[in-house]
């Protein structure tokens, strides 16, 4: 499992315990940002592409430096 996905999941679990009710009905049980992305795939697409480029590209900082 990718470590930044893990971080998102941990954040999601934290938020779920912190506030059991989301402000809007996401119509899914996914955690954190994954729930938002499933609610609105059209906005999820560019956000995912951006994350993919920032964390997967071989240029610039290496992956470990950015994830940590």
């Amino acid at each position, binding site marked *: 499992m990718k470590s930044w996905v893990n971080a998102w999941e941990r954040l999601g679990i934290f938020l779920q315990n912190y506030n059991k009710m989301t*402000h809007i009905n996401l119509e899914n049980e996914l955690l954190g940002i994954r729930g938002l992305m499933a609610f609105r795939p059209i*906005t999820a697409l560019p956000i995912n592409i*951006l994350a993919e480029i920032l964390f997967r590209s071989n240029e610039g900082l290496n992956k470990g430096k950015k994830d940590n």
Partner: protein
Amino acid sequence: MAHINLEKDILGIRSLAMYRPDTGKPLYELSQVLLRDDSPLSQAERELIATYVSFLNECKFCMSSHAAAARYLYKAEAQTVNLTLEDYQDAPISDKLKALLTIAVNVQKDARTVSNENVALARSFGATDRDIHDTVLIAATFCMFNRYVDGLATLTPMDAETYEVMGERMGTIGYIPPKL
């Protein structure tokens, strides 16, 4: 002077999209989806939320350019933009938009302060899940854009005419990444 070596004379976010087109493309696409695609909020209302968040972040480039786009889209009611920046609670905008702006203000300040009461008030004026979702994502996205543009000290024009031209382009052709 920008903090990194950007294309000379290219303004704000555009210079960053030219510097790194692979990240520029999804950022422009996100702007286009959020501010131009179908939404229960009008394009002018969404530009106004982007403007207000940029104003709170004191990002001169984003605030001035999106204010110009909002003025262009509001047409005869262009003064709505300045009145909102002065005091949104007293501006000639709908109660729903005022309640959504309060949510956007809280997202900018500390997103954990968006309260059930803020959301209930927006719903009482007819806001749907989509209105609330789009408001929060526009506010969050513009916090990122504001920091991206200012964190690299991109070129920020000071004259109103430059922004007026930019606003008309944003209001007509929308958000298309710069050609290289």
